[in-house]
């Protein structure tokens, strides 16, 4: 059941401008609470592993949630979304190593680079139908991966971008300090999620759902489907590249694996794991996958088999993501409660 249908069946009308403003206020509140909780974590538990884990969650979470804008909201199954993750990591790392720009300037420039890449690649891809779209985005991902591998003087080839990323202090923030990096990553995550949530709940977001459910009808009422798809492709690519920036700061470098197709595959699986019908699903999926990943790699070197079996279990067995079950359970309870009310 899509979110739009969920809204309809519960009798809620799609929010008007006033309601939307109050909903945005609620989102802001949740974001502020979430940020406060995340920031307090290192003070409550002095665990370095936890800090590292949350930073990785921030990187992958932004990437996976941005993919959900494409997969869940627009019905565009991109199998090459990882290219923006890799592009973000490499652009930011190279800008910092080669140009001596300040971190905010390099960050903005990285966003611009991904936007341009998204515009060019998206212009070619979004016209294509389902499976073609999936594979052609995948082909572009492999193109970027092969460029990274072969352009050795610039990218370091298969060795990756080494020698560390310089982190000049800006506005009193020193990203060389693990705690500062942690707070900055959390801030990027929360702001990124908040922005994506606003995009998803805006009239543009509802246009995306309409394009997903019936592109022909959308074009009949005057929506330029191609332009809408291209816009969301570019936006999602920019958010994914922020995930790459966090990752490059975390490992202080960039590796060709960041642009490899498996990242895209994991992103798709994260979305499946958490469920694409809720906004928060991919975030839940990210946490689950990273826990699974860390446990499995600690226990065995045959990570692929374990991950594969888990994917099969979800894709063929459960057929839904975790958050989908939560939503259904919640809706069932509410329905029961309302029938009880009407019967009394």
């Amino acid at each position, binding site marked *: 059941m899509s979110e739009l249908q969920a809204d309809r069946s519960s009798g809620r009308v799609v929010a008007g401008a006033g309601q939307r403003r109050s909903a945005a206020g609620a989102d802001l509140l949740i974001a502020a609470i979430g940020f406060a909780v995340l920031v307090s974590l290192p003070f409550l538990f002095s665990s370095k592993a936890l800090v590292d884990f949350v930073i990785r969650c921030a990187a992958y979470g932004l990437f996976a949630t941005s993919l959900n804008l494409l997969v869940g909201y627009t019905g565009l199954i991109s199998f090459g979304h990882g290219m923006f993750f890799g592009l973000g990591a490499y652009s930011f790392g190279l800008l910092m190593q080669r140009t001596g720009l300040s971190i905010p300037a390099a960050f903005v420039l990285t966003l611009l680079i991904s936007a341009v890449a998204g515009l060019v690649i998206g212009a070619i891809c979004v016209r294509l139908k389902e*499976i*073609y779209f*999936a594979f052609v985005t*995948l082909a572009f991902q492999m193109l970027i991966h092969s*460029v990274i591998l072969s352009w050795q003087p610039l990218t370091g080839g298969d060795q990756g971008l080494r020698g560390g990323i310089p982190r000049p202090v800006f506005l009193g923030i020193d990203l060389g300090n693990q705690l500062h990096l942690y707070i900055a990553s959390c801030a990027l995550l929360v702001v990124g999620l908040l922005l994506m949530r606003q995009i998803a709940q805006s009239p543009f977001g509802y246009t995306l759902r309409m394009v997903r459910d019936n592109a022909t009808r959308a074009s009949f009422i005057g929506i330029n489907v191609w332009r809408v798809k291209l816009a969301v492709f570019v936006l999602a690519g920019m958010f994914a590249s922020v995930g790459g920036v966090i990752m490059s700061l975390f490992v202080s470098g960039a590796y060709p694996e960041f642009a490899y197709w498996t990242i895209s595959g994991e992103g798709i699986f994260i979305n499946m794991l958490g469920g694409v019908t809720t906004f928060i699903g991919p975030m839940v999926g990210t946490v689950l996958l990273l826990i699974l990943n860390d446990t499995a790699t600690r226990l065995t070197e045959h990570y692929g*088999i374990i991950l*594969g079996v888990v*994917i099969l279990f*979800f894709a063929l067995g459960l057929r839904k993501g975790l958050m989908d079950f939560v939503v259904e359970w919640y809706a069932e309870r509410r329905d029961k409660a309302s029938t009880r009310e009407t019967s009394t």
Partner: protein
Amino acid sequence: MDFDALTGCLVSSACIVTQTTSGLIIGMLLFLVAVGLTLIFGVLKIVNFSHGAFYMFGAYFALSGYQLTGSFIVALLCGSLGAAAIGLIFERFFISRVYGRDVLMQLLVCYAFVLIFDDAVKLIWGPEFKSMGMPAAFQVPPLFIAGGVVPPFYLLLVAVALAVAALLGLGLARTRLGKVIRAAAHNPAMVSALGVNTALIYGAVFALGCALAGLAGALAAPVRSLTPGMGFSVLIESFIVTVIGGMGSILGALIGALLLGLVRSFGSIGFPLFTDGLMYLFMVIVLVARPTGLFGKDLA
């Protein structure tokens, strides 16, 4: 970029012959993989994202078969039949559950098996690079055609691939089974209503596609190194072939594969660092000019 080398090559007949044959080899191997992919898509409406794994299985089965018996014919049989057997099991127990489901699920199931198959090969044959070596029958001096070097094994490879193309084309066009398969691709419900066991047809087509990929892997084993995950780049390339040639067209797969092979072999002289890029560029040009591919029908 090295245009001098490219023009230098294009004026020497020896270089042209050598590069053309190596382009033909790349193209023929790609054709065998791509034609299986396009056949499966045409009938089952599923893009087998794990198709590269069957190429890999073919190569490894051929390696084991060759090491056990020392006969390259046995190796070829092991490669294609082994891949077909795994393909049949895979289709019956897993792929058949996602027919008609959304593309996301189909991709995920195949993705899971790419991971599982790659790790399984790592478990069975080890993670390191393996090589089969040229079979004894082909360890003969190469032929010289117009100054270019052509190993005899290459001739066998091209002959086998062309024979497969001809057999497939004729089989689909002329035989009764071919007619049933084409009908099932067009309207499976009607074919089933006429008393044909479509599940059997689906399984057979999937196994045939996998056998072709396995045959390609077995043929590639003497000239390429074997490694777990070797199938993935082949999958991407053969997908590009089907995009260029048009999904569902055997002739398109042949032409697309040959074009791509030639682009790769001549591109490696002119643009050594951008050989892969050239291939993608070629695909983009075709996609922009003819979104359904050179020989594709409209897939709407």
